[in-house]
């Protein structure tokens, strides 16, 4: 059946900002869908509030709206663009929820928009846990016994009937947000209360627990002829009870017999039919009892998902693309399999390798939170690795995590039993230690019992530890001697490399260094070879060079003799290094491909567009370590390597690659080192006569104290060579400094930087390009929050709205001076701070930055693409990019923070980055742009109601002006005693509320009972103030907009004013840039 011709325009909804549970996998699926639909001749209208996505690049849709994802905005867009159909299955839960809202409020009917990919009825059955369970029962399958309740009392009754432990799952939340496990009545009171408040409909499910059962996922695809395929089956190593997004997972399934797997497949087929998902992809989760094989259906996601992105990368079957094509009427047999070219998409991939996914968490950034893993997802990103066997894939995945581990058991721990029974981010490594030190014969069964890992996996893990143990008793010379006598050098090295041991791990075991191991094994002919991911276990020839390394003798890399460039990706997403860098890598690929280079991508993040097999000419799915990257370099012999696009990860191995003779293109290693090494950077700035905050470097706590004696408080302390401000703190007093030195810093010989903290300074971000002779600024962004709030967490606006030309010119001049002096070839980013008439440089990043995509969206200048071209030797003159682009209107970027997922974390912004994603709002006035950004970040700005003000003494006089404005706008003012007194003296009417320690009802109660619509709360300098911590965390929980800095409060008031003056309007990027005379 060919595609539908009655449809002309299709609306695609993206997933919005990156949040926990909804990462850049939806950029990957959205890009695939948009590409596929446009290639079929459809006009694509796209909406996504996330400017860091590739899908929102104007060339991926005919009309691209970077606007808040709300029903109102969508209605405006639909009214303007008149799409025939809406494809809601590409943008995660966000898009499904929005589509349902538009369906329910009549918008779709009003404008005659058809839902394709999934009908409203199908979405509703799958998403409504109660209806889903009824449907499951109807087709004779089993789901966990449960009851939907709306109050705590009912929850307690239900749990009594079901029997503890029970699961609490709020309805209609994302990534299991607000869910938990209750082992007893006390737990339940806490967990259920939280769940009820998290659920938008105050409803939770109390459910029978099957913790410890095995968890499986099936990725399905169906077309309108009822053709049905299982693209991939995934086994979770972490048992039921740990969210699939937090579980280490393996494909294909390893511990089911064919009968068991086919039974799941049969069930999946029944379910997808019953739910009525006719055209598209879906994911179904099952629990299997390891004792008797009985099966419980957990849930179905009627859309592409994180798991489907993983499955696509794991198999080579592009689920999102195919889902988009079947949604417009194609049947699976009409769609070719890109990889084999000869066979159609209606088949089930067969894997002759093993894929392991390990999540990446960032708990270290959130002090005081519960970091155990459970039914609510907490991971920020994930790494995937491919190996011929499970041990090989697992160890490669560990290397790819970029957390300082380079193999299974490369760090040893003292293990207590609860470290094995309680699922945590570290548990895998604790298991390694447990296996290493438990010499009893039954360690497999005892560890399997306590961890609920299937014994098969534990046995594989134990084998790794046994091999490592043997190696520990040797040294490299002993090994050399051994095979000098008996031969077998090749077999020796091949054995260990086939088990996935990295050179670095082997070096540690054999007490030598990584390069010696590498040299030694290569001497024996043991080098990495590459196999292709071909969807068919080698049954057909693979035409797509999608490769992974392994240590068998055959090699399918088949490198070309074209001019070629390797682009290093960023690895797993983490706070501070996310989708923005993937965006840059992808652009570098596209640009170089256009210049006629063969592009070669190396990355290990399955969620990304960069690891789509058709982004680069060749894709190596490998960890971004020196060893694995060198393996590719040895095979491909590239002309150049680009390290400036993947964030900090590629920079960290750049020196080693350079030393090994790899041709690094772009900014030189020396320049990178100057910028990255604080000592040389300081003297470099001094040479250039550019001011920096007074700073020192210390290598011991004593050194720090001595430095502070010279600098004076407040100070900013941080370890060097980090991204996203890990371990950074502002200290106002000796005590707080001592606490940081004690608790937050590992004294491992690496320097610690101490800078004078510039209080109340403006912060400015600059992204610029340089080619060695010229510097052109891409964009100057003013932060809304003052310096001291990490640039990644601060809102910012392009162009700057409050900085005089005098400073801007100085900033431009410094930028040029630095770019030329460093001989930057490509992108660089500088953070400035302005305080007391002085412009300081805070740092220079000789690479693409987090704001690169944002600036490109605002200016229509493809900065990353230009940077890649410069790296090949082109100049800014060649590119015709000699002038800083003029920006029309205002573009505001706002950060999105994960505090609601982490109750207990202090939501006060600081120098340590904690946001997971970002949104953009644009409009002709700052106020509207800011309001849009806030709305997009789920901080709905109120236009009336009560504002609660609680500020420190320094801010009191400034806040009175804001209070007056809000009063004039019709807001009621509410404050605690001190602030209230102050405001009253200014002649403002204020209602009073008790401080938290003054009893009830206090400010928290007012928030809980919906009496507060906006909070302005600036905490006292540096002091961890219990009151304000509580206020901030309740605000996040109850979704009350809160600003914690005065500058943000000012911007907020401007936004509210704007909303009062004029309603918001929408405008596509294409229209915006066409109006402004730029071709998009």
């Amino acid at each position, binding site marked *: 059946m060919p595609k539908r011709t009655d449809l002309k325009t299709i609306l695609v909804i993206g997933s919005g900002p990156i949040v926990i549970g909804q990462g850049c996998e939806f950029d990957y699926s959205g890009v695939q869908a948009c590409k596929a639909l446009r290639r079929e001749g459809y006009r694509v209208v796209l909406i996504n509030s996330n400017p860091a996505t590739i899908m929102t690049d104007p060339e991926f849709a005919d009309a691209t709206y970077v606007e808040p994802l709300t029903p109102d905005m969508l209605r405006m867009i639909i009214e303007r663009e008149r799409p025939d159909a809406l494809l809601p299955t590409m943008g995660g839960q966000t898009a499904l929820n929005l589509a349902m809202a538009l369906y329910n409020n009549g918008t779709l009917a009003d404008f005659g928009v058809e839902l394709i990919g999934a009908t409203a009825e199908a979405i509703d059955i799958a998403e409504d846990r109660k209806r889903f369970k009824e449907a499951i029962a109807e087709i004779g399958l089993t789901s966990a016994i449960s009851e939907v309740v709306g109050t705590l009392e009912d929850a307690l009754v239900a749990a009594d009937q079901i029997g503890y432990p029970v699961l609490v799952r709020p309805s209609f939340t994302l990534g299991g947000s607000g869910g938990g496990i209750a082992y007893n009545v006390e737990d339940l009171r806490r967990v259920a209360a939280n769940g009820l408040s998290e659920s938008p409909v105050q409803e939770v499910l109390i459910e029978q627990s099957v913790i410890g059962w095995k968890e499986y996922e099936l990725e399905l695809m169906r077309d309108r002829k009822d053709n049905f395929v299982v693209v991939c089956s995934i086994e979770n190593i972490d048992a039921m009870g740990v969210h699939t997004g937090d579980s280490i997972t393996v494909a294909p399934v390893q511990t089911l*017999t064919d009968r068991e797997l086919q039974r799941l497949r049969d069930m999946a087929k029944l379910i997808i039919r019953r739910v009525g998902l006719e055209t598209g992809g879906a994911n179904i989760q099952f629990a299997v009892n390891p004792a008797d094989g009985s099966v419980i259906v957990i849930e179905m996601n009627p859309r592409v998902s994180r798991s489907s992105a993983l499955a696509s990368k794991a198999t080579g079957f592009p689920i999102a693309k195919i889902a988009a094509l079947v949604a417009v009427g194609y049947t699976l047999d009409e769609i070719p399999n890109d990889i084999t070219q000869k066979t159609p998409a209606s088949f089930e991939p067969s894997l002759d390798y093993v894929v392991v996914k390990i999540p990446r968490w960032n708990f270290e950034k959130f002090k005081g939170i519960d970091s155990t893993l459970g039914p609510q997802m907490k991971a920020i990103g994930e790494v995937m690795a491919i190996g011929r066997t499970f041990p090989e894939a697992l160890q490669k995945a560990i290397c790819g995590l970029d957390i300082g581990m380079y193999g299974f058991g490369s760090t040893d721990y003292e293990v207590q039993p609860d470290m094995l029974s309680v699922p945590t981010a570290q548990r895998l490594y604790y298991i390694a230690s447990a296996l290493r030190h438990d010499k009893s014969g039954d360690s497999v069964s005892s560890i399997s019992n306590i961890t609920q890992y299937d014994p098969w996996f534990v046995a594989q893990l134990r084998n790794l530890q046994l091999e490592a143990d043997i190696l520990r008793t040797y040294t490299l010379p002993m090994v050399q001697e051994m095979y000098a006598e008996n031969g077998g050098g090749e077999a020796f090295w091949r054995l260990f490399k086939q088990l996935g041991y990295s050179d670095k791990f082997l070096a540690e075991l054999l007490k030598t260094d990584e390069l010696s191991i590498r040299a030694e094994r290569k001497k024996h002919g043991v080098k990495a070879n590459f196999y292709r991911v071909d969807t068919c*276990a080698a049954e057909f020839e693979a035409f797509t060079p999608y490769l992974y390394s392994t240590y068998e003798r055959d090699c399918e890399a088949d490198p070309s003799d074209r001019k070629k460039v390797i682009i290093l990706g960023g690895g797993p997403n983490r706070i501070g290094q996310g989708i923005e860098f993937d965006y840059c890598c992808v652009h570098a690929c596209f640009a170089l491909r256009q210049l006629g280079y063969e592009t070669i991508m190396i990355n290990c993040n399955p969620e990304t567009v960069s690891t789509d097999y058709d982004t680069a000419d060749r894709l190596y799915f490998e960890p971004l370590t020196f060893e694995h990257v060198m393996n590719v370099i040895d095979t491909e012999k590239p002309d150049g390597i680009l390290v400036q696009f993947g964030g900090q990860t590629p920079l960290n191995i750049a020196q080693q690659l350079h030393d090994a003779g790899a041709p690094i293109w772009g900014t030189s290693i020396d320049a990178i080192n100057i910028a990255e090494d604080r000592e040389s950077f300081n003297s470099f700035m001094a040479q250039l006569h550019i001011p920096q905050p007074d700073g020192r470097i210390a290598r011991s706590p004593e050194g720090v104290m001595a430095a502070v004696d010279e600098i004076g408080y407040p100070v900013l302390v941080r370890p060097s060579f980090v991204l996203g401000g890990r371990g950074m703190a502002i200290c106002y007093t000796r005590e707080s400094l001592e606490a940081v030195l004690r608790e937050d810093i590992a004294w491992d010989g690496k320097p610690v930087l101490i800078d004078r903290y510039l209080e109340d300074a403006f912060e400015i971000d600059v992204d610029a390009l340089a080619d060695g002779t010229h510097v052109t600024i891409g964009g100057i962004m003013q932060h809304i929050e003052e310096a001291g709030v990490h640039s990644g967490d601060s809102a910012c606006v392009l162009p700057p709205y409050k900085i005089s030309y005098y400073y801007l010119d100085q900033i431009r001049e410094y930028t040029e001076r630095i770019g030329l002096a460093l001989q930057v070839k490509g992108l660089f980013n500088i953070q400035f701070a302005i305080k007391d008439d002085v412009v300081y440089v805070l740092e220079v990043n000789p690479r693409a930055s987090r704001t690169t995509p944002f600036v490109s969206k605002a200016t229509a200048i493809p900065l990353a693409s230009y940077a890649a071209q410069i790296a090949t030797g082109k100049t800014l003159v060649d590119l015709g990019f000699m002038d800083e682009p003029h920006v029309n209107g205002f573009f505001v970027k706002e950060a999105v923070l994960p505090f609601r997922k982490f109750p207990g974390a202090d939501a006060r912004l600081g120098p340590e980055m904690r946001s997971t994603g970002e949104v953009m709002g644009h409009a002709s006035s700052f106020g509207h742009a800011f309001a849009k950004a806030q709305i997009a970040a789920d901080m709905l700005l109120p236009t009336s109601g009560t504002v609660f003000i609680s500020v420190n003494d320094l801010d009191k006089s400034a806040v009175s002006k804001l209070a007056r404005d809000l009063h004039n706008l019709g807001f009621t003012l509410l404050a605690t005693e001190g602030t209230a007194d102050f405001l009253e003296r200014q002649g403002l009417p204020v209602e009073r509320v008790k401080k938290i320690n003054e009893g009830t009802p206090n400010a928290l109660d007012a928030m809980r009972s919906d009496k507060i619509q906006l909070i302005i709360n600036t905490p006292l300098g540096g002091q961890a103030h219990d009151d304000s911590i509580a206020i901030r965390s309740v605000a996040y929980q109850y979704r009350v907009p809160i600003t914690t800095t005065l500058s943000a409060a000012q911007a907020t008031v401007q936004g509210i004013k704007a909303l009062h003056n004029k309603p918001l309007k929408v405008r596509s990027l294409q229209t915006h840039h066409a109006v402004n005379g730029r071709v998009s």
Partner: protein
Amino acid sequence: MQAVIVLEDGSRFPGKGFGAMGMQVGEVVFNTSMTGYQELLTDPSYHRQIVVSTVPHVGNVGVNSDDPESEKIWVAGFAVRSISPVVSNWRSQATLDEYLRKQNVIGITEVETRALVRHLRTRGVMRGVIAHGEMADDTQLLLWEAQRWSGMDNLDLAKEVTCQAPYVWEEPIDPAWYSDTTTSGMRGHIVAYDFGIKHNIMRLLTARGFRVTVVPATTTAAETMSMNPDGVFLSNGPGDPAAVTYAIDAIREMLGQVPMFGICLGHQLMGLALGGQTHKLLFGHRGGNQPVRDPESGKVTITVHNHGFEVTAGSLPDDVTVTRVNLNDGCIEGLRCDRLKAFSVQYHPEAAPGSHDALDLFDDFVALVESVHARS
């Protein structure tokens, strides 16, 4: 202990042995199913074949007494990338290693199976030897053994795997494993030719209310017809279909007298009896993911395959319809002759291992048998 596969073209794939020691010749083929090794090992269609499994980890779930598809292991040898050091499954009763050893079948692990598969894919399946023990080092000897063997062409292997005497099969499918509806009540008598029949075929027929009598491959048409069958079933099996001349004769004689359904070798034999021809494929179809299309309805089914021969396109008379086509290579996967009330498929609707998507073919057989009933 050392083990090796040596192919007739001299290539050598070393590994470590498991299962039995010794040496065995066979046709070396590969299978891309990701689960179901026990079913595969016991499928008589693999008689005289050394099977290479493309999925790397094998043996993880051990073996049990429910999953075999016949009374014994039929493969001539089994090659895997990594045999599991432990077994983990609630139904498991023994390890794969023990299973092979007990039945005197040679296994080899740590073979670079992907290289071996790519070799077979480009050069075609070929004769080879699997050896486990000292002689694994004697490449010359093994090569000579491989080349000395006549190979599969023109080999009637059905005779070697079929039952000795007719028997009645009574065990139906276990509904715990099949959402497929089972019916009670007697629907008639099926005579099933055993060219290497798999248990699951008999279970599925029984579950549909048939009395099933299994007969040896050499049973003549007269003998079969004297049992008063309401339908005749032609099973899967090993070897070259053209060599099973006695069965082709019997089938030709019965066609039109009684509704008939054939699977795999049974399909090829029916094709030959209808006047068609068969030929050998380069490397065959063996796996669980083959898309097969019904040209009439356009519906695609993911099917389980295990065949090295196919019915030659264009060799069939006009009143025979091609009902299924393989989407990967256009191979004929199904036939029907309405006039003679017969149909067949090249693949394995009985699954075991593999998807249950084609189970409805057994219902088609029920319908065919009943329509004939209704008329008479």
